[in-house]
């Protein structure tokens, strides 16, 4: 009986903390519905709420272009990470060689390299290759950032698929590539979804490299774009917050639909031990 009462108190406490943790998000939502005239006339609830901010964003060609830029970046990063992550992960899972462990550790350590350092070291090369102000630069750098995790994750996933399945396929006359594409990939969908979501999220959140390699009014990503909105002389908070919600929507929708893969992808690597 006492235990039940205690968990009830815990639950109420949990709800309370959840509500408090939603504070910044509540600010975002509340301000997105305020017109320029009423923006600071109340704290919590907007006075005479309006959707004019959302409408003006949908009509604003530049802000929509940023959405397109970020969408292209995130999509290409996702596709590249999945393609290279699965093949490399499969190779590392099925073919063992000397020094493999060292290679895996080296690969994983690269993820810890500070982005400001990578950007410094790559800047001149990017210019020389003519990739400055070219989305390809961001695609390549971001994929290099997400790939170690994708490889690590897929290797772990393939390790869990018995080798006898590939062997059976090869006895039936499949080449190893065919066995890989026709048999192994289809049964690995959950792992692929997990690394796909992760890569998309990383591409969508890209900020630092974008401030360096994508300069020009129509070259912004959604992240650099929304920060630019803050740089105006008079900040239109209603517009900024509405844009914040619009550019967060794709990720939030992904999260709601694919929450299971999201969490398993995130925790899969570390919890095994």
């Amino acid at each position: 009986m006492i235990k039940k009462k205690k968990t009830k108190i815990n639950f109420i406490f949990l709800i309370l903390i959840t509500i408090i943790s939603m504070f910044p998000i509540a600010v975002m939502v509340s301000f997105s519905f305020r017109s320029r005239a009423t923006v600071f006339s109340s704290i919590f609830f907007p006075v005479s709420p309006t959707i004019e901010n959302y409408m003006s964003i949908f009509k604003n060609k530049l802000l929509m272009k940023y959405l397109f830029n970020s969408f292209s970046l995130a999509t290409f990063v996702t596709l590249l990470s999945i393609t290279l992550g699965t093949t490399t992960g499969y190779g590392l899972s099925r073919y063992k060689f000397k020094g493999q462990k060292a290679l895996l550790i080296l690969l994983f350590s690269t993820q810890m390299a500070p982005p400001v350092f990578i950007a410094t070291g790559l800047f001149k090369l990017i210019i020389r290759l003519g990739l400055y102000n070219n989305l390809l630069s961001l695609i390549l750098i971001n994929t290099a950032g997400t790939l170690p995790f994708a490889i690590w994750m897929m290797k772990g996933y393939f390790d869990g698929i018995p080798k006898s399945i590939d062997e059976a396929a090869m006895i039936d006359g499949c080449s190893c590539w065919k066995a890989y594409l026709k048999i192994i990939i289809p049964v690995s969908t959950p792992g692929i979804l997990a690394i796909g979501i992760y890569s998309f999220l990383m591409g969508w959140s890209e900020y630092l490299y974008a401030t360096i390699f994508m300069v020009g009014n129509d070259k912004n990503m959604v992240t650099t774009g929304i920060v630019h909105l803050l740089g105006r002389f008079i900040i239109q908070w209603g517009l900024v917050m509405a844009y914040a919600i619009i550019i967060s929507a794709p990720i939030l929708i992904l999260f709601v639909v694919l929450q299971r893969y999201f969490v398993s992808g995130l925790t899969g690597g570390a919890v095994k031990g």
Partner: protein
Amino acid sequence: MFTLLLKKRRKKISSGYLFIVPGVAFVLFLTIYPLVNAIKMSFFNLSSGNNIFVGFLNYQKAFQDQTMWLSMAHSFYFTIFSVSLHFLFGLGLALLLNSVKEYKGSSICRGLLFLPWLFSSAVWCVTWQLILHPQFSILNEIFNVFGLKGLNWISADSLLPLTSLSIVNGWKFFPFHMIMYFAVLQSIPKELYEAASIDGASGNQKFFYITLPSLYHTIAIVLTIDTIGTFHYFDLIWILTQGGPMNRTEVLSTYIYRKVFTLGNFGYGSAMSVILIVILIAFITLYIKILLKGEFEG
């Protein structure tokens, strides 16, 4: 027969390389190349347009640079404060979620608590800019309602701005810890607790002898990844304060960024990045040790 076997084996290995090489080469090129290049640049004076070899001059300059030391101290303060917040809230909430998992609403709470992690740094910081703004801070408005005096959260000439930034960072990244620890807690077999209860263990004993030991490995991994990530974290500070006011929130990554990308001082910036890397390598070595330990035990 033997040659056939050898041929087959060779074929197997070469197709293995075909699988492995593209991805590995991709990552290594885009990380090793900048590493080597930055180390090379750190020995040159590149700000004047022509490359002049200057030996260790950039490093000497860095060690005499007051702002560099200040930034480094700030990086440590920001990291220790933020990571402590992530850990305490992450672990606390994971335990809380685990204790009420039979309630239907608890998974909704878990989903909502996870939200801050999903927002991009840009969106998160823009929102906090509104909450902590020097002229019209929402937080100060709320303080006023309760009759409290507002503060200059990100514009005071004290340690307050850096503290505010640590809290904003703590608020964004605690869900990562929470979700990791929660996953472990769920994987602990119930029988362990039941057996302990039969043996007469108290709640505290169960926590210290069952719950905490199962978490150790994950805590170690998550803390190391988080420490490294937070130590070179850039977006949040750059968007909220750009290192200001008067270097009060300058950390190593923002200082390097300013030197390299606003002042064009590649040589000096590279030298400082090398110093940053050396600090991080210490953390990374620790991380690798933990990972290897887990693999041998697991």
